[in-house]
């Protein structure tokens, strides 16, 4: 159809296509997996929504840790919708550039959150130990980092391993699928594991909160 391409009609058509197809939901340049548009994020009245980060006034927001301790939260990542297995978020924009790193693993919610100086910089849905090999709860520290570790016990790869205990519990990259479990390790999506590996230092604190209705 030559007429549709002639002269001004062609330019108009191009503009139409750009206008209707081009711009989706406005997003910050963070690494996002399966971002869905349309869901509303509840906002605390004294918090501010800046891009994809919800900032709280100092001392106003806390998250429980183990042994009764509380984490003072400066900001959280605003996920647009419920996350699924395999989803993760990583956004360091707006977070403090240096500060104590804390990895908070909530087995009940199946969510891992990475905080730097009280600002959340990453979150992911995790896999954890099954009923026969449960993941221990408590406070741990990163004992060892290995980019390409291979489990001798289970003859399986453990990319971006962050060792937590001497008996083999670690955070590592995994194929995170619903209905799956590990032998006690914390499995996170491999791309997220790479990010976490790069920012984690030895002796960083890791807190694992137990699943509330655990059978053991």
């Amino acid at each position, binding site marked *: *159809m030559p*007429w549709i391409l002639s002269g001004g*009609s062609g330019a*108009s058509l191009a*503009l*139409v296509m750009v*206008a*209707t197809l081009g711009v*989706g*939901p*406005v997003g910050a340049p963070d690494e996002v997996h399966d971002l869905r*548009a*349309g869901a*509303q*994020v*509840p*906002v*605390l009245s004294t918090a501010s929504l800046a891009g994809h980060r*919800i900032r*709280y006034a100092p001392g106003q*927001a*806390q*998250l429980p840790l183990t042994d009764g301790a509380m984490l003072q*939260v400066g900001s*959280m990542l*605003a*996920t647009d*919708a*419920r*996350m*699924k297995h395999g989803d993760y978020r990583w956004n360091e924009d707006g977070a403090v550039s240096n500060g104590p790193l804390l990895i908070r693993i909530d*087995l*009940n*919610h*199946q*969510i891992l959150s990475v905080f730097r100086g009280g600002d959340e910089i990453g979150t992911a*849905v995790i*896999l*954890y130990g*099954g*009923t*026969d*090999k449960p993941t221990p709860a408590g406070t741990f520290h990163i004992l060892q980092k290995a980019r390409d570790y291979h489990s001798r*016990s*289970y*003859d*399986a790869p453990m990319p971006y391993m962050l060792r937590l205990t001497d008996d083999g519990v670690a955070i590592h990259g*995994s194929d995170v*699928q*619903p*209905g*799956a*479990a*590990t*032998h006690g390790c914390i*499995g996170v999506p491999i791309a997220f594991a790479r990010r976490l590996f790069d920012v984690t230092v030895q002796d960083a604190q890791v807190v694992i909160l137990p*699943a*509330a*209705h655990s*059978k053991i």
Partner: protein
Amino acid sequence: MLKRLVRHAVGATVPKMDSRNDVGGPDAATTQSGAGKKRRRRMLFILVVMPGVLASGLVLQEQNRAALSSAAPAAMPAGPDSLLAARSPGARGDGDFLVMKSTFAPPGSGDGAMGPDGQGPVERVLSQIRTRPGEIAPFGGDSDPSFVMPLLLNGPLLPVPASFAGPPAGPPGLAVPTGDPTFIAPPGGGGGGGGIVVPEPSTWFMMLIGFFLVGHSLRRRIARARLAPPVMASG
């Protein structure tokens, strides 16, 4: 063009020849045929409809942006706990799970971590070995490895039972996992022989759309040829 030349020959005024606009001059009104009307309609369409579509696209875009940026404060203020609960896929259900590690410790190091009955991971897909007609069922499951041997080692093929004449209708014609020595030779000597291939619905639709497009363009070409008969090239 030919009409213009003829009119000139009989003494009418020669209209101004413009390469971009080949109708013009005092006789423009009389020389404007359906081609000119068609061009006017086309320009009208471009000038009216396209901006309308553009405007509606921009309006939609604005609505989209407005819907995203307006965050109505919830009735209950949401702190980090609520955010975590909102983003969480929920608590994991109880029960047995497919453990992600692909291989397991050798038997003897057994610590009961191999699944509910210690047998290893449970296959969730391809629970039945499926073969196409004409293929030999692969090893595995309850197939007897020895059933393949007669095919490989014996020279002439074994006699075919009378009831199995012709192409296999449904189930694969060869898989005899019970080790029955009287099995059937694969027709055509390979996979894919004798099977009926049905196109996907999307393939059907694509074919229909293609036919419609071809017919439409043919019709347009005929219509255009009828309206504007071929003219001689101008000097």
